[in-house]
């Protein structure tokens, strides 16, 4: 930590830049310059750590920027001045930012916490055990009537039926399921509605001798259950 106490203006400018919309359009070079100056003001003239590895591209770029700023500015005051100039060019004005500052100063303790916009690093990446779920099967893009029923692709199904009005709605796939079986099992209500409206067989049995109604019941899709129960 340097002994330099950043000015109120500096804190305002930093607060402004942290959420400034103009910053999204700024090049990385400028952002790095800002970062370097910021670190000179708030931490120390040069980084006390060794240079991050080449695989940590962001960390390395930031470290370099800080180190470069340390060479450029002899005193934190110089860095601060440069930072404020850059902030001005990005739309910050000393007076305008004061409002934003009021809330951040009033609750000093909030400064401890990360901002909400900062996404927490993936919760999974850590020591300890791993939360595992079933490995999903390979994702298959299937534009047949069965594939569309499975993936709940309503526009796709409509297009298919528009283009091929003679499509057999009760055709069985290689495992013996009709489209309505799959839609009822997976809970794709809209697909079931279309199939029924187009005249699909609502009593067709699957290889386990189960009807669409029984499948939806077992899978707990009450909306489809109601749909099939109403004659």
């Amino acid at each position, binding site marked *: 930590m340097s002994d330099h106490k950043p000015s109120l203006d500096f804190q305002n400018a*930093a607060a402004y830049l942290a959420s400034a919309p103009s910053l999204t359009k700024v090049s990385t070079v400028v952002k790095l310059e800002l970062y370097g100056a910021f670190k000179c003001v708030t931490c120390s003239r040069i980084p006390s750590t060794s240079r991050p590895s080449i*695989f940590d591209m962001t960390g390395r770029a930031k470290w370099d920027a800080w180190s470069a700023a340390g060479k450029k500015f002899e005193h934190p005051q110089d860095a601060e001045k440069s930072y404020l100039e850059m902030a001005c060019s990005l739309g910050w004005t000393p007076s305008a930012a004061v409002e934003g500052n009021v809330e951040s100063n009033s609750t000093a*303790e909030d400064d401890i916490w*990360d901002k909400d916009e*900062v996404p927490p690093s*993936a919760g999974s990446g850590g020591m300890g055990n*791993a939360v595992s779920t*079933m490995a999903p099967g390979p994702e298959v893009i299937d534009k047949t009537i069965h594939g569309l029923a*499975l993936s709940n692709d309503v526009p796709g199904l409509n297009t298919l039926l528009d283009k091929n009005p003679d499509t057999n709605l009760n055709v069985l796939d290689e495992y013996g399921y009709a489209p309505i079986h799959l839609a009822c099992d997976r809970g794709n209500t809209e697909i079931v509605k279309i199939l029924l409206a187009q005249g699909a067989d609502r009593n067709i049995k699957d290889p386990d001798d189960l009807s669409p109604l029984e499948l939806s019941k077992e899978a707990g899709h009450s909306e489809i259950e109601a749909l099939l129960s109403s004659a």
Partner: protein
Amino acid sequence: MSAPQKQKEKIPEIIDTTIDADVSDNESGSDVEEHDQFAVDGVTAPAPSTSTSQKKKKKKKSKAKKLLNAIRGKDEIPQAVVDQVLDKVKAEGGAAASEANAENVREALQQMKIMDVVKGKAGIGGSIRRTWENTSSTGEGPPIEDGYIEPSKPRAEVRQEPFPLPKDFEWSTLDISDPVQIKEVYDLLSLNYIEDDQAAFRFQYSAEFLAWALMPPGYHKEWHVGVRVSSNKKLVAFISGIPMNLRIRKHVVPLVEINYLCVHKKLRSKRLAPVLIKEVTRQCHLKGIFQAIYTAGIVIPTPVSVCRYYHRLLNIPKLVDTRFCYVPRHMTLARMTRVNKVTSSTSLPGLREMEEKDIAAVAELYTQYMKRFDMIPMFDVEEIRHHFLSGKGQGEIGSGGVGRRQKQVTWSYVVEDRETGKITDFFSFYSLPSTVIGNTTYPLLEAAYLYYYASNVGLKGEGAEQDEALKKRLMALVGDALVIANEAKFDVFNALSLMDNAPILQDLKFGLGDGFLNFYLYNWRTAPLAGLNIEGGIPAGRGIGIVML
């Protein structure tokens, strides 16, 4: 898979002007070498002992460099890496070989977060690597002989004062026997601990579980290290160690098992994790302990072993609704439920719950049986009591829900020979639920995890004959564990590909998980242990005889 990838691509663009730089980030050594080593141990997975010849090393290095360049171009796993792994898997054979194809290899690599590792920013793991890298288990080159990497220090030479924390924070030793403090740890972990890749599930260790896991016989309260906000004393970070005598091949090493490293989600930019690791390490040094074992879902240089999770689905509708699993293309939920139906009664005559009087017999059986594996915790009678009986809960079975006592953490059963009265087998499993993030119908996933087991069938005969007999016995034993877990309304039964699990999991209808568990040793050198893979002729799983909680 696509969302995190997108995020990663964006990272170089985001330059945060407010976040503190990492004060304790001391990178050392050559990264290319590190990567090279990783490519050897992690991706292509031969024992490090193959990399001795200078020529070979050079070749590998240039290969690694080529791969690296390919990797850095885009965020996908390069075909070359996939091909190499695929070749290796096929060449090594084993159960996985027949199922291996470019697609699932790519997927597995993605899941192992290889890109994160390569870039050195694998979350908290990155800090573990940086903090402990000089003493990672397999180290540079081939382990010549098992042993420590850095010698132990006398107590007087150990740093006496705690490591500095960022301003506004202070150290706090947690007294886990105090219900208030254990509740604080529970609250911290249940909101901020490990999640799956999709952030759909987060471990929810219960207070009883934590008490059980953190206070084994001989525990040190100084190893329960917390960080609090100075102003309001809120607990915001935690790490723990428990003492253990671990046999690693032929050495018994008194060491610490490090676990439950957790930093509040909104303080991840403060880089507290490396300081926590250093502080708990210091506390261990003060007690004369200089070796550690720990696990992580992520790959950091260099694991001694990797195991994979397997899941036996029990409550299918709930598991599908919470997206723990999906209905496969060739099935319906109705059929899936039928296929996975568990019988309502156990199969082994003489099976009963373990009692106080069984402790000596179970301890003896455990000790004999565990000789089968390369790395195991040595349990004395007191530890057997703790690990298998102290978590049985209060009251009668059923008082804590169907098939459960109140606050029950562990389920331990023995098989008593009806004629001789001898204990011939035992098994145990523990309850570790997960929060289902954002699901109001099913807020909690009830998961049982296979813990330790043993059978005297594993002590008789040898070779293929013993393997066959033991497999049959363990099928019955773990099959009965499934029945009991199902009765107790667990939704899923999980196991890792360690100990003797590998041969029985498929037949018991366990399915492949997307999670891996990497085992690491700190300051102890040993050759890779058989986990997912066969190592040095040891069958898959048989290298690892320790279950981390």
